[in-house]
Structures are given as C-alpha cells and as structure tokens.
C-alpha cells in the first residue's frame, strides 16, 4: 500500500547546525506514529517540514504520493495541533473549529453540522459559544484537536500537545487521543520526548537522536529488542551489562561479565568470540531469592537500596566489583533488608544484546 507520508532523504540545517539529517521515513495510512527523542533532536523540525513551515535543504517530502516539499502550508492537506494550542483568542470555540471549514468553502449548513459533530465527539457541545480563555487546559486541548481534525486532513500532526497538562489529565488525554484516532481512522503523527506517552499510544515509534532515526518499530519491539544503547536507555529503565563473547551455541551466546559467565539470546546478531556486547536486562526480568536459583543466569549480591513503591519494590543490588543492578520485585517476594545478601537471577531469553559500537577490538 502507498504510504501517506514519505520523507525521502530529507536534510534541514540552520546555519552550520544540522537539525535533521538524511531522514528517510514512510508512514502508513491510519497509523498512530510517534517521533520520540530527547530535546533538540529534530522532532519539531521534521513535523514543521511536513506542515510546510520549514523547507528542507535537500530531499523530498511526499504526501499521498505527491511531492509537497515546496508547497506552502495553506495548500497542504495536513493540520497541526500546536503545543500551546494556538486557539484564536477572539473567536468562540465553534468559530475556531469552523475556521478551516470556512476556508475550504463549505456552505454554512455543512459547517454547522460538522462543528457539532466534532464537539460531540469530545463532549463539548455546551461550550460552543465560549471563548478559549473561558476553557480549562484539557478543554482547550480538545478544541485545538477538533479544529485541526475539522478540515479532514490526510495526516494530523501533534507537537507535544499534552505537555502543558498536569500528570493526571495527561494520562486521561492519552487514552482519549488514542480512541479518537481509532474512531476517525486518521493517520496521527505525534511528537513527544516522553517515552511513556509514546509507549501508551503508538502503533509505531520512531526514536530520533541528533537529527537521525535511531530505531523504528512497534512499542513492544522497541522495549523488548532495543537496537542501540541509546534506545535501551531512552525507553524504559534498563541494566546494561557490558560483556565479552566467549562462545556461541545455536541462538544463545555465552558471555563473560563481572567474573561470571552468562547466557543471552543473540537476537539476530552473529557475534564472534572476543566481541564486546551489551546485554539489556530489564529490571522486571530479574528475580531475587535467598537461595541460589537452580537454572538461568545468576549472581550473588548485596542489597544497597530498597524502595517500597506500593505495587512493587525497587531494589539496587551490588554485584561483584561495585556494579549495581536495578530490580523490580513484588514486595512480598523479597524480605531481605539493606546490606543483606541476595541472589539475583534471570532467564537468558528475557534479555537481548546490543553491539558495542565504540569497541575497538
């Protein structure tokens, strides 16, 4: 199927600073795609190029198969939800939503019907006549969303639309956004630096770093099989065990780490003995026990920090020569206190490995 959006080798720089470098990205219709990355990695720049507010230095941007690289924003069938909403302060809620429809030349009756339909979608029928200044943050957010959806864009662009909301409302809006996306069947391109937000809503996450795509995939893959140290660190909490390959056996590799030998799934890599690898060990994959586990990887350590967090307990366990492992365990599973010995174990198949790009061996 033809992708709705294609970035074809797009580069954008400001002076000497390269904001986006050789971006290649295809987005399928009807998907919720998230650009995720730290501040300044070029997420907004990519979005603004698609919206028509920035022109790439090189490369092409295709929308529904057509080259729109140099088409002005008002001639592109995409709409943006801005971070600060950018609602027109002198227009009522209904007028704001109608703005794009009027410019499309729809007749009043159809505009009226569409506005009501959209207000109903977010339960704001009673607020049609209010000014934006008379709404709460969450309501403004919804109006901005409906204003952008009203002209029926091919792709809806959202630049950190939830960052101005408080934590509780943000979670609520995440669910609402996702359900609106599913109801309308629109393609959403969402920008955030919040990995949790990305994991909650996305069909596809595009992790960006320094103007480039670091990895792209569905949330499960990115969390379970991060392709780089950057991704592993950026998405979720993780223990990275730098180890050296001792040998391989089928799909498993034997690695030397911290004076012991551990096993790990190769995850598609073909390591040779002597290679350096990072083993990605998620805190929740760790099991702690007083007695030595009978199978799997295991190492003895001392509890250094123990923090009760309600439905789980977070442990920092010192293993070997001062290496710390973070573990999430069920509060009743571990009764040991700070300073006490404990066995840390995990199953090889719950980990994955990442090549150490900076190794010179």
């Amino acid at each position, binding site marked *: 199927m033809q992708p709705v959006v294609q970035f074809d080798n797009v580069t954008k720089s400001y002076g000497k600073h390269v904001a986006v470098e050789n971006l290649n990205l295809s987005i399928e219709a009807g998907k919720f795609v998230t650009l995720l990355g730290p501040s300044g990695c070029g997420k907004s720049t990519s979005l603004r190029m698609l919206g028509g507010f920035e022109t790439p230095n090189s490369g092409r941007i295709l929308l529904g198969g057509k080259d729109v690289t140099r088409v002005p924003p008002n001639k592109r069938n995409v709409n943006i939800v801005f971070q600060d909403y*950018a609602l027109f302060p002198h227009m009522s809620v209904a007028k704001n939503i109608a703005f794009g429809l009027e410019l499309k030349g729809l007749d009043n009756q159809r505009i009226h019907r569409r506005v009501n339909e959209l207000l109903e979608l977010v339960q704001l029928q009673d607020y049609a006549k209010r000014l934006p200044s008379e709404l709460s943050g969450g309501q403004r957010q919804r109006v901005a969303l409906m204003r952008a959806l009203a002209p029926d864009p091919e792709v809806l662009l959202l630049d950190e639309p939830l960052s101005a909301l408080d934590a509780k409302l943000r979670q609520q809006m995440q669910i609402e956004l996702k359900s609106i996306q599913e109801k309308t069947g629109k393609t959403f391109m969402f920008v955030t630096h919040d990995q949790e937000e990305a994991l909650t809503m996305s069909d596809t996450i595009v992790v960006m770093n320094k103007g480039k795509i670091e990895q792209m995939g569905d949330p499960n893959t990115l969390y379970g099989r991060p392709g780089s140290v950057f991704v592993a660190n950026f998405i979720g909490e993780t223990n990275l065990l730098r180890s050296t390959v001792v040998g391989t056996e089928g799909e498993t590799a034997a690695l030397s780490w911290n004076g012991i030998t551990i096993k790990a799934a190769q995850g598609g890599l073909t390591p040779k003995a002597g290679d350096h690898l990072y083993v990605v060990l998620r805190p929740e994959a760790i099991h702690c026990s007083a007695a030595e586990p009978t199978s799997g990887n295991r190492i003895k350590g001392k509890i250094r920090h123990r923090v009760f967090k309600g439905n789980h307990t977070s442990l920092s366990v010192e293993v070997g020569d001062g290496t710390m492992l973070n573990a999430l365990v069920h509060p009743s599973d571990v009764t040991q206190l700070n300073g006490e010995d404990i066995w840390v174990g995990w199953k090889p198949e719950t980990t994955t490995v990442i090549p150490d790009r900076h190794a010179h061996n």
Partner: protein
Amino acid sequence: MRNMFADAPRTSLTAIYWAFLLYLLLPLTLMMAMSFKDANFVAFPIGEWTLDWYAKVMQDKQFLEACLYSVMIAACSTLAATTLGTWIAMLIVAEGIKGQIIIFALACLPAVVPGMISAISLRIFISTIDMPTGTAAIILGHTVHAVPFVVVMALTRLRSMPGNLVDAARDLGADSVVAFFRVTLPYLKPALVGGMIFCVLLSIDDFVRTFFLGGYRPTLPMLIFAKVQGGMSPEINAMATLVLVVTAAVGLYAEYLTRRARTR
C-alpha cells in the same frame, strides 16, 4: 515635637502634591466658571450665572463648521496613520527583513521632532512638490505626526501575540492576507482602537502644523485662536469648555480600552 519633625518630609510631599493639583486644575476651573458668567467680559466677580453663552456657541455657524472641519481632518489623518502605522509595525516584526531597527527609528522620528521644526519642514516639503496649502496638506502633516504612536501601540500588542496564531491560520488554509485580516487584525484591535482615539485627539489639538499647512478654512484651534486675538469673551470659554469635556471623555475611554486590552 518629635512626631512633627518625623512627619515633616511626608507633610511637605503631600503639600506639594496638592499645590500641583491646584496649579493644574485652577486655570481649567476658572475657564469653565467664566463660561457661565452673565456679562460680556472675562473677570471676577461673577455676578449672575447663565447658559446663554452655550446657546450662542451652539448656534455659531463658524464654530460648528470649524468643529466639522477638525473632525473631518482628524478622521482622515487617523485612518491614514492607523493603516500606515500598522503596516510599519508588521514590517518591523516580520522575519527576514533587514534594517528593522532603522525602520523603527525612522517611524518614531516625527514624535520627537519639535512641532515647529516639523511644521516648517512639512511646509517646505509641500511647496517643493507643488502641493497647495489646505486640507490635504493638513491631513498629511497630522498623519506623519500620528504614525509613531500607532506604530508603538501596534508593536507592543504584536510582540505579545503568540507566534503560533498566524501559523495555525496558515495551517488551516489561510493565505497570508486572510491570516492577517482574520487573525492578526482582530488581535490588534484593542491596541488600534486606543491608538486611533489618540490620533484623533492629537489631530484635533494640533495648532502649529495646521497653522503652517492650512488654508483659509479654520480648524477649531485656529478659530479659537482668531477669536482670542479679537478679545476675550465668555463665549470662547464656553467653546473651550465644550472641547475640553468632549476630548477628556474620549481620552478616558481610550485609556479604559488600552487598560482592558492589557489585562486580557
């Protein structure tokens, strides 16, 4: 004793304040009082009170015509100055235009040039381009004088405008002209209304430029000046009082509008 000395600075400050207020208001009050005097000359004591002078003024064709003429000039120069001033302000905040500081400095110049100098230079200017003195020349002079005030007021408002508003309008299908008229202009409205009222007051009040650029038809200040030269009479006081009341009301309204715009 100690208390009195401790309070001395405060007491003297308060005294100065009241003295200043008196100095400010006394001439105006006297002028207004005299307009109700039932006699032909302006002097104390006021024996009898009357409204006759007002009745006379309201029937004075010369006065009414001068009022109308002043209002017409004010309306034209205000319209011109507002359009020009808004355009210059937009130019100053626009991206990718060089020399914005120079544009700003030039636009503000007429506000700081002494009225006399600006009047003379305007007079020289219109005679070099063979423009006759009269209505058009006066409007031109008043416009030049009023533009800086519009620029500053529009600029202040523009700088507080979220940059995304115009982007949002463009995004929803507006070209830059539609975006200006449907988003930027409504946003500027409170500042422009305040600025326009200020322009009107500047124009109605202006004497020096009008005097240098005007023809035979007198504006309100010119008429009053001519009458004063013919000798003081309570009729002039009545005229001045009317002008004072109307302009003060308009000025206060403008102040109210700009205040409301600022708190929004």
